[in-house]
C-alpha cells in the first residue's frame, strides 16, 4: 500500500524499491560521500550498525572517525552535535530509542534550539538528531515512546516525521542540509516497509505538507506510521462509499498548515490520528489550527482526535496493540464521524 504513495516516476524508468531503513542509510551515505562536514555520532552505530541497523556498513565505508560510536551519554551526544554544528560541521546524531531523548533534553531545548536566537541570529546549528519512536515491538514502556510533541513545543527545533521510504530519504537529506537543529523521528515498524526510492540525491522540502490521498468526505491528518494505517482504513471505507482524504504534515514544526485547512474546507470533517498519547499531543495543535481558520465555517462535525491512550506502553501484546490507534479504530472513528455520532 505504501509503494503507491510517491510514484512520481516517469514511465520508462524501473521502479526501484528500498526499505525505509535502506532509504535512510542511502541518504546518510550520499551526504557523507558528497560532503566532508557530515558525520555520524551515536551509540552502537559503528560495527553494530545501530540498534535498528540503519547505519549498517557505514563505518566500513567511512571509518570510525566519521561514524563515531559513543559511550552511553545522551546529553553529550546532543551537545556534541550542537558544538560541532556551531563550528562548521553538519553532524547527524542518533539517539538509540526516542525515549532516551529525555536525557538529551537540556542540550536540545536549552542549547541547540536557543543559541541562534539568544545570540541575535548570529550563529546557526545545522544538526540532525535521528531517533526511532513508537510501539509495536513488545519493548514496553521505556523503549516505545512517541515524544515528538515534547520537541514540537520548543521554538528553534524543527521536527520531521517521515511516513514512507521515499520521504525518509528526501526528508533526511533536506534535514542534513537545513541550517537548523532538526529532530528526525523515525518509526521502528516502518524500517522494513518497502517503497519507491530514486537512486539520485533528492530532497523533500521541510515544512511541506503532503496530500497523500484525495477524497471528499473526511480529512484524516496522520503522522508517521498512522499514515499507512489511515491508507489501509481508507481502502476499506472506500468500499462503503466513504471517500477519505489523507494528509501527512511530514514536518510537524514549522507546520505548513494550508493544505490541511484547504482539505477541511473541502470535506467539512477532520480527524487527527497519531500514536503519541492524546493529552498535550500534536492532535491538539492541528485541531486548534483548523478551529481558528476559515475551515471552521465549513465544519459539519466536531474535529476528532484519535491518539494513543493516556498510558505508558504496556508489555502484553494485546494491551500494547490496544494502547495506540489501529486500522479498525480509524475505520470506526470515520464511520462515527460520518454518521454524526459525535
Amino acid at each position, binding site marked *: 500500500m505504501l509503494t503507491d504513495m510517491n510514484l512520481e516516476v516517469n514511465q520508462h524508468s524501473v521502479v526501484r524499491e528500498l526499505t525505509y531503513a535502506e532509504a535512510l542509510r542511502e541518504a546518510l551515505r550520499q551526504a557523507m560521500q558528497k560532503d566532508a562536514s557530515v558525520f555520524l555520532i551515536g551509540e552502537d552505530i559503528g560495527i553494530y550498525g545501530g540498534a535498528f541497523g540503519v547505519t549498517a556498513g557505514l563505518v566500513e565505508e567511512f571509518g570510525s572517525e566519521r561514524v*563515531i560510536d559513543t*559511550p552511553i*551519554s545522551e*546529553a553529550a551526544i*546532543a551537545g556534541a552535535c550542537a*558544538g*560541532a554544528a556551531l563550528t562548521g560541521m553538519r553532524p547527524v546524531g542518533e539517539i538509540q530509542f526516542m525515549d532516551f531523548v529525555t536525557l538529551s533534553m537540556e542540550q536540545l531545548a536549552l*542549547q541547540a534550539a536557543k543559541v541562534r536566537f539568544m*545570540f*541575535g541570529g548570529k550563529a546557526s546549528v545545522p544538526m540532525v538528531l535521528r531517533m526511532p519512536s513508537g510501539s509495536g515491538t513488545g519493548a514496553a514502556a521505556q523503549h516505545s515512546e512517541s515524544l515528538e510533541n515534547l520537541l514540537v513545543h520548543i521554538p528553534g527545533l524543527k521536527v520531521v516525521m517521515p511516513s514512507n521510504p521515499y520521504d525518509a530519504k528526501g526528508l533526511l537529506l533536506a534535514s542534513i542540509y537545513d541550517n537548523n537543529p532538526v529532530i528526525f523521528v523515525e518509526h521502528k515498524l516502518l524500517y522494513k516497509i518497502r517503497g519507491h526510492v530514486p537512486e539520485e540525491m533528492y530532497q523533500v522540502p521541510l515544512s511541506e505538507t503532503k496530500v497523500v490521498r484525495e477524497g471528499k468526505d473526511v480529512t484524516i491528518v496522520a503522522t508517521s506510521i498512522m499514515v499507512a494505517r489511515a491508507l489501509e482504513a481508507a481502502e476499506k471505507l472506500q468500499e462503503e462509499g466513504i471517500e477519505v482524504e489523507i494528509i501527512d504534515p511530514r514536518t510537524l514544526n514549522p507546520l505548513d498548515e494550508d493544505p490541511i485547512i484547504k482539505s477541511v474546507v473541502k470535506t467539512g470533517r477532520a480527524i487527527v490520528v497519531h500514536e503519541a498519547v492524546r493529552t498535550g499531543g500534536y492532535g491538539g495543535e492541528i485541531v486548534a489550527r483548523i478551529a481558528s481558520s476559515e475551515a471552521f465555517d465549513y465544519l459539519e462535525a466536531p474535529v476528532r482526535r484519535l491518539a494513543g491512550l493516556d498510558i505508558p506502553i504496556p508489555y502484553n501484546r494485546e494491551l500494547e496493540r490496544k494502547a495506540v490507534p489501529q486500522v479498525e479504530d480509524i475505520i470506526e472513528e470515520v464511520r462515527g464521524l460520518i454518521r454524526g455520532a459525535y
Partner: protein
Amino acid sequence: MEQDKPTAIQRLTKKREKELLEMIGKQQIHLTLERMYLIRAFEEKAEELYGLGKTHGTMHLSIGQEGTALGACTAVKSGYDYLLNHHRGHGHCLAWGGGVKEMMAEFMGKETGYCRGRGGSMHIADVERNNLGANGIVGGGLPMSVGVGLSIQMRGTDQVCLAIFGDGAANTGPFHETLNMASIWNLPVIFLCENNQYAMSMSLGRAFNIDYISQRGCAYNIPAVTVDGNDFLAVYDAVMNATERARSGEGPTLVECITYRWRGHSRSDRQLYRTRDEIKEWREKDPITRLAGKLVKAKMLTEDEQVAIKEKTRQSIEDALVYAEDSPAPDVSTVMEGVYAD
C-alpha cells in the same frame, strides 16, 4: 589508602614568574592589566546601572575573578581558538577581546548589542571571534565542547577549545559525560574550572567530598592541576601548558582555578551563607592589585602608567555607556527574527 592526587595548589616559583613576565613582555602585560581594570569597571558600572533601573533581569558579577578570566583567555589565541563559558561570563567576553560597547548595549537590551538585545547579561556571545557564548545553564556548555573538539579534529586545524565552567558544573551529569568523551577521543579541549567556592549558596565543603576538583581528572585519565585563580600568571602558565598539549594532539587538560566572587550570586542574593570576614579576606587577595604589584616590583609598570591605564578604562566605560544609551532598541516588529536560520 594512599592515592596520587593533587594535594596542594601549584604555585609559581619566583624564577618562573620572571620567565613568564619576560615572555609576555611589557606591552602585552599592560594590555592584560588594562583588560582586568576594564572588567572591574564594566561590572561596577553594570551594578550601578542596575541600581538606577537602567538594566533589568538578573546578572552575575565576576568581580574578584578577573585573574582567572585573563589568565585563561590570554594563554590561547582568542579569535582563532574557541571559547565556551558560563553565566558569570562578562569577564570572559572582555578577556577574549570583546568590545565593551557591544557588551554595554547588550546589557541595555539594544539592537547594537552583541545579541541584538535578545540575550542580555547571561548569554553574551561574540560568534565572529569564536566566542560561542556564555550559558545560563550550569554545565550547559560542557557537552558542546565535545562537538567543538571533534570539529577541530575533523577539520584538521590546530585550534583548541577553552571550556570554562564553575565548581557547581563539576557536579552535573554532563560534566562526567563530557570529560569521559574528551579523554577517549583525545580532544583538544581545555577544561577550566573557575572554582569560586560557591554554587549559589552551596559551598565547596558541602557539595564535594574531595579537596580539589582537579582530583576528578584522574577518573578520566585527564592530567589536572589546581592553581591560584587570583594569580594571573599561575593561571596563564597552567592554561598555556594545557594549550600546548591540546595543540600537539595530546588531548584535554583539567585546570582548576581557585578564586572568589566578591559579590553575591546574583542581584537577589542576601549572602546568608558566608561571613563578612570571609569576603574581606578574599578582597585582600585582589587579582588586579596583585598583578599590578608584581609588575611594579618587576619594574614593568610605573605609578603614572597605572593611573593612565585606569583612566583609559574609565573613559572606555563612559564611551560605551553613551554608545549604548544612544543606540536604538530593537524594533518590536523584528521579534520573530533569529528563531530559525534560512
